[in-house]
């Protein structure tokens, strides 16, 4: 084979007998893999890679960062060969989402002689990490897929802010939106999956001042009007624990585990209900729930305890579904003034009335009637039963009957063989 002394690549002719030229050829475009364990806040990242690494034009370096980065701008020092700047592209060098990343991130760099390291790419799963402290008048514009507080998802975060802040979406990492007015707070969805939101100061939202306002599954604490009446505390859903008492074995002035509670003198339905619980668990007393006295206890279902009219009648106690135990009597072997283990109890949905009339027949063997009006109307036409107060039934008293029955009354009839006045009893039963 002939001795090759020159080699032309990309219009550049190299003397292959030149050792420096051969080295340049060998290192240009060569890819190195390195690791970096430098603290995220340090600007100079110490990278360790293979021993044959040389800082050359065109060298590609892929680095695994175990600790993430929260410093800007950063520099790379590979195998101690010197600290070189990292360029991301002009003005973007100082752009937080571009230069911050979390732990376990892989970045690709290429070295350009005279410029330094060029930051080529970053693994796509990383999220921006921002440890910026905001002052009262600061605005924070967050761009990207999310915002992370306190380092990782599982950490319970504490977010304190002096400015209006709005998190759009159901989770902390679902994007961010800053609001500047109370109207925004009323109309834009917000969410906080865990942690504590502490708002310093008050914000006027709508017609009232709200110390804490989180739309959707969150407390709204203010004297603002909700619906048609003022509700000092209003929780549309979720969990509220509003007291200083211990929740557990101690007294619970107000405690609701779940569901909706509207505690006020507002009108619910057609009547004023001082306290109304649509569902969930209500324990409204200081009595022991278990083996002791339960003045009011509802394990589930709906209870409306008032003198309000339910349906067409007044029901001091009305239980639509569930279990009602209304007494201090023992439920078991002892007496049970009122006990319903399951199903539906509606007190006084059936009505029965009774009475008597003294009827004087017009003539012998001539039916004679009298109109009877019920003291209280039935919901539907009742069944009416009659009986004569006599011991001559079938011989002198031929019979009694009720006719023309309606919800308000009926016609009570008597026939006998003479005109002796006779007492006739009646009993009516039907729907209230």
């Amino acid at each position, binding site marked *: 084979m002939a001795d090759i002394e020159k080699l032309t690549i990309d219009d550049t002719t190299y003397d292959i007998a030149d050792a420096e030229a051969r080295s340049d050829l060998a290192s240009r475009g060569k890819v190195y893999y390195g690791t970096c364990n430098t603290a995220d806040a340090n600007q100079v990242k110490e990278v360790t890679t293979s021993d044959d690494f040389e800082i050359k034009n065109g060298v590609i370096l892929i680095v695994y960062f175990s600790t993430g980065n929260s410093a800007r701008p950063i520099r790379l020092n590979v195998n101690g060969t010197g600290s070189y700047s990292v360029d991301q592209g002009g003005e973007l060098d100082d752009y937080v989402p571009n230069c911050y990343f979390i732990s376990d991130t892989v970045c690709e760099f290429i070295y350009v002689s005279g410029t330094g390291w060029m930051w080529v790419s970053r693994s796509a799963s990383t999220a921006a990490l921002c440890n910026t402290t905001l002052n009262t008048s600061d605005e924070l514009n967050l761009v990207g897929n999310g915002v992370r507080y306190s380092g990782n998802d599982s950490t319970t975060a504490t977010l304190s802010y002096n400015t209006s802040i709005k998190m759009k979406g159901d989770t902390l990492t679902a994007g961010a939106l800053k609001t500047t007015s109370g109207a925004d707070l009323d109309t834009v969805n917000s969410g906080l999956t865990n942690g504590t939101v502490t708002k310093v100061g008050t914000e006027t939202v709508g017609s009232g001042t709200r110390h804490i306002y989180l739309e959707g599954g969150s407390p709204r604490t203010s004297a603002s009007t909700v619906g048609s009446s003022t509700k000092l505390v209003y929780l549309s859903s979720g969990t509220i624990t509003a007291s200083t008492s211990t929740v557990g074995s101690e007294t619970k002035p107000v405690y609701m585990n779940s569901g909706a509670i509207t505690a006020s003198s507002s009108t619910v339905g057609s009547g004023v209900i001082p306290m109304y619980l649509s569902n969930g668990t209500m324990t409204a007393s200081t009595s022991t729930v278990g083996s002791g006295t339960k003045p009011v206890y509802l394990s589930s279902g709906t209870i409306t305890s008032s003198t309000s009219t339910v349906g067409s009648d007044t029901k001091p106690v009305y239980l639509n579904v569930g279990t009602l135990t209304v007494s201090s009597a023992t439920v078991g072997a002892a007496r049970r003034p009122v006990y319903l283990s399951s199903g539906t109890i509606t007190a006084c949905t059936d009505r029965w009335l009774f009475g008597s009339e003294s*009827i*004087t*027949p*017009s*003539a*012998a*063997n*001539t*039916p*004679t*009637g*009298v*109109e009877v009006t019920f003291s209280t109307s039935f919901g539907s036409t009742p069944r009416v039963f009659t009986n004569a107060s006599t011991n001559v039934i079938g011989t002198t008293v031929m019979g009694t009957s009720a006719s023309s029955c309606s919800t308000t009354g009926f016609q009570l009839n008597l026939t006998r063989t*003479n*005109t002796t006045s006779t007492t006739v009893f009646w009993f009516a039963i039907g729907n209230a």
Partner: protein
Amino acid sequence: MTFYDKNGAELKIGDHVVPDEGYELEITEEREMEEFGNVLIGYQVENPQFFSPLTQENLSLQWSKKD
């Protein structure tokens, strides 16, 4: 329908009738009742809360028109 007393006198609304033994009735209306068919309804003059349906047969047997 035409109603007659036991003397053959025709009875109309507003007439009073008396039985052989019993109470005077004022006839207030004619009504069709399921049990009796057409009857005249008479209210006791002395105790107007009481009333009786008077069939043709009953009227013709024991009731007399009061003049």
